[in-house]
């Protein structure tokens, strides 16, 4: 045992005896190697991907130019043959000036070309990316997820606005005093749902998002249910009563009028 300890101390002493300058040179050498390899990897990645990116932009630019040209030619041709007038004579003048058949055809052709350019560009990019799959590129799939998430976000915002407006107008016409609250509730319900879907699509947050969404969604639904339930008890009971009365009258029975109720003057008003 004593011999073993002595030999270890001797060995440590031998290590400490190595000059410090030699060790520094080795570390620098390793760092330099690592940097060189990193730069090499990034440059190789760029070399692998750059033609694809370039091809993407060239394809989009070329097809956009083609689209502009075709759109211009189509607009001139259709105007020359008086396409709008002929169509109006056959099927009626149902077009607004901003969306005349000529305009729709011209715009349609332009966007078809742009879409075609995008498809071809992505295809070219995909080919160049496939050749470089050995490289650790994790950002590119994430970008496609991000595009999907952006589409979900836009759709969610549009649907939220539409539903909020529908609820607002219906609630106002039903003369509900809390129409705006109801509309806002529906809007945020859809927006929260959209946000959860976007985060889920981006794979951000994991279980935390699901949990938070569940709590938030449940909270909004409960709030709305309480607001509607407490605020429109009379409305619901009136609706149920009128439904019941209609049902009884259809069956041949008549509900006797409640006592001490003044005659309803609205019977004199007929909208149609």
């Amino acid at each position, binding site marked *: 045992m004593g011999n073993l300890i002595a030999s270890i101390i001797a060995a440590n002493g031998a290590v400490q005896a190595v000059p410090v300058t030699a060790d520094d040179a080795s570390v620098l050498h390793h760092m330099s190697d690592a940097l060189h390899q990193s730069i090499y990897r990034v440059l190789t990645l760029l070399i692998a991907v750059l033609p694809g990116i370039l091809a993407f932009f060239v394809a989009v630019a070329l097809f956009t130019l083609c689209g502009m040209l075709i759109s211009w030619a189509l607009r001139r041709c259709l105007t020359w043959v008086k396409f709008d007038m002929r169509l*109006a004579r056959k099927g*009626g*003048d*149902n077009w*607004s*000036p*901003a969306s005349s058949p000529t305009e729709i055809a011209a715009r349609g052709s332009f966007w078809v070309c742009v879409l075609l350019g995008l498809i071809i560009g992505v295809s070219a990019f995909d080919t160049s990316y496939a050749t470089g799959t050995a490289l650790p590129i994790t950002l590119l799939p994430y970008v496609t997820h991000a595009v999907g998430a952006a589409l979900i976000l836009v759709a969610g915002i549009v649907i939220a606005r*539409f539903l909020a*407006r*529908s609820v*607002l*107008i*219906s609630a*106002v*016409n039903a*003369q509900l*005093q809390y*129409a*705006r609250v109801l509309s806002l509730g529906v809007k945020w319900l859809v927006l929260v749902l959209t946000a959860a879907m976007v985060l889920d699509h981006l794979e951000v947050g994991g279980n935390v998002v699901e949990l938070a969404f569940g709590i938030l969604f449940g909270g909004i639904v409960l709030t709305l249910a309480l607001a509607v339930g407490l605020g429109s008890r009379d409305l619901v009971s009136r609706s149920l009563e009128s439904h019941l009365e209609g049902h009884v009258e259809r069956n041949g029975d008549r509900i006797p009028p409640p006592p001490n109720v003044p005659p*309803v*003057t*609205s019977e*004199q*008003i*007929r*909208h*149609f």
Partner: protein
Amino acid sequence: MTDSSMTTENPIPAETSTGNQAAADLLIVAASMPPEQFDALLNNVAIAFSVENVVVAAPNEFTANGPTNLRIVSTAQSTAAWTLKPADFVNARQAGHEHQARAILMLGQGADSLNPGALRSMADAVLTGAADLVVPHYTLPPHAGLINSAILYPLTRALFGTRTRFPLAIDLGLSLRMAERLAVAGQRFTAPNQDDALLWPVNEATVTGFAIDEVDVGPRQVPQPSDPDINAILALVTGSLFADIETKATFWQRPRRVPPMRRPLSDANATDGTGDVARMVEAFRLANANLQEVWSLVLPPNTLVSLKRFSVLDASVFRMPENLWARIVFDFVIAYRLRTINRGHLLGALIPLYLAWVAGHLNVTASGTASERHIEAVAAAFEADKPYLVARWRWPDRFNS
């Protein structure tokens, strides 16, 4: 459904239905109605016309209480009860051809309340060749047909230059060429998913250049929609009229002189009717507080300011000025055309404004002004403001002051 199946023979006793295919001067196409109403209508028809020149086409079964010497044939039943539908015009044209009629009288539900003289007058106007389209002028209670008074009549008069008081009348007299025209127009809407489509015979006749006559028919029981919800009715009727206006834009943009008034205005006034004013004004105030975001997409700022000013008025003195109402309706027509917002939302947003007009109308009539005089004033305001509609129709991007 094919044309040949639209009019089929009725299992009617032989002595009442002989010579169904023989020519007749007048074809009366009656809507589906309860048996007692149908009997009463047949009795009125028998009084009004010599029976050998008339054929009645109806979906109803013949009953024993009606006159036995009338020729009655069965026709396809329309789905609607409260107004004429495009399919009714297609069926009427088919029946008219089959019976080689010179004129067609279309009668809606509740037509038994029309007196025989009224039926005779309507038929005569077509049979004499004086008119291609005969529209009845009903004598309704002062507070009935308010959508017609607020929107349909003023808008039709201003744009199409006709004084027809009931553009969506449920009874019509048609010449054969008018029936043909309406059937062709109706064919576009006979697809199964277009049950809610309406035809506007007055607009069709005006665009075609056919003569229109209006006949006083006195009081009539106007059938009401099965769903009395104002939200649904207003959206359906105004949406249909706005769409028709959009279709005929090239016609009505030309200046057109409205013919002078032929009949004196009725001075009949309602004894009451202000009971609902407070509720309607409250509905308008609620909308004014909540729908600014929607209205601001449709109405110009000065209209919004005016609405805000009127919303603070007391219900008993509330009134919607005629020119403001005309401007609002025109702006909604423009927004409908431009699809500024979803059309369902747009027509929904019009409802509180319409209720505000009704409240104002009730207050005006309660103050002693005859209902018809106020409606004429509204129609005159629409006429006067037509250049605004034409200007915005052509250059929609600017809000004129």
